[in-house]
C-alpha cells in the first residue's frame, strides 16, 4: 500500500522555536507538496517541489522554508514559530506532470504554537 508518512500527528512548540515537519513518501513520486489547512479557508499551498533540491513557492510561503535533499523526503521548516502558524499541515505527493495523476496525502500534523 503506497504511503505518505508525516512524522508527527500532533506537535506542540513554543514561540520562537525552529520547527521541522517531516514527510516521507515511498512511491518514487517526483512532486511533493506542503499545504496548510485552517477552518473556513480550506487547504492553502505553502511550498512544493518537483525534483530533488528544487522548490517553488506556493500561495503562503512567508515564515516557512523547505528542504528536499532526497526524492522521498520533503521537510517543512518554520524558522521561528509564531502563534499564527498554529494549524494543520498536510503533505502530499504526486507522480509526473500529468494532471490526472492522483495525489496521495499524508494524515496531517496538527501543530500548536504556544
Amino acid at each position, binding site marked *: 500500500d503506497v504511503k505518505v508518512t508525516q512524522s508527527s500527528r500532533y506537535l506542540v512548540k513554543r514561540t520562537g522555536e525552529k520547527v521541522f515537519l517531516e514527510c516521507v513518501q515511498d512511491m518514487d513520486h517526483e*512532486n511533493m507538496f506542503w499545504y496548510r489547512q485552517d477552518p473556513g479557508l*480550506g487547504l492553502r*499551498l505553502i511550498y*512544493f517541489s518537483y525534483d530533488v533540491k528544487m522548490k517553488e513557492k506556493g500561495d503562503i510561503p512567508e515564515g516557512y522554508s523547505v528542504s528536499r535533499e532526497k526524492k522521498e523526503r520533503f521537510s517543512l521548516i518554520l524558522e521561528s514559530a509564531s502563534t499564527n502558524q498554529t494549524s494543520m499541515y*498536510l503533505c*502530499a505527493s504526486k507522480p509526473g506532470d*500529468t*494532471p490526472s495523476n492522483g*495525489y496521495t496525502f499524508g494524515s*496531517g500534523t496538527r501543530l500548536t504554537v504556544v
Partner: protein
Amino acid sequence: AQTVTQSQPEMSVQEAETVTLSCTYDTSESDYYLFWYKQPPSRQMILVIRQEAYKQQNATENRFSVNFQKAAKSFSLKISDSQLGDAAMYFCAYQGAISSGSARQLTFGSGTQLTVLP
C-alpha cells in the same frame, strides 16, 4: 490566479437520501481538471471523483456523480443513497492542464462539512 468557492460551510442529509454540494470556480484557462476530495475524521484525504474539463459527460463513481457546467464554472457533487460513512469534510479542487502554469498544484475550496443523520 484560479479560485475555488464552496458557499456551503455545513450541510446535513438523512441517511439514504440524496444531497448536493456546490462548488464554483474562476479560471481563464480552457483546459483543466476538477476534483472532489473527502476528508473524514481520520484526516486522510480521499479522492472521490475527477472531471476533465474537455469532457462533456459528467463523471460518475458509484453513488457519487457531478454536475459539471463549464460555461457557468460550476461543479457540484451529488451523493445518492447517503450512508453514515459519507460524513466528512468535502473539498472541491482545481488543477490546471500541463500547458498552464498551474498543472502541478491543486487549488482547494474552503470545504463543506457533511453530516449524515441516522
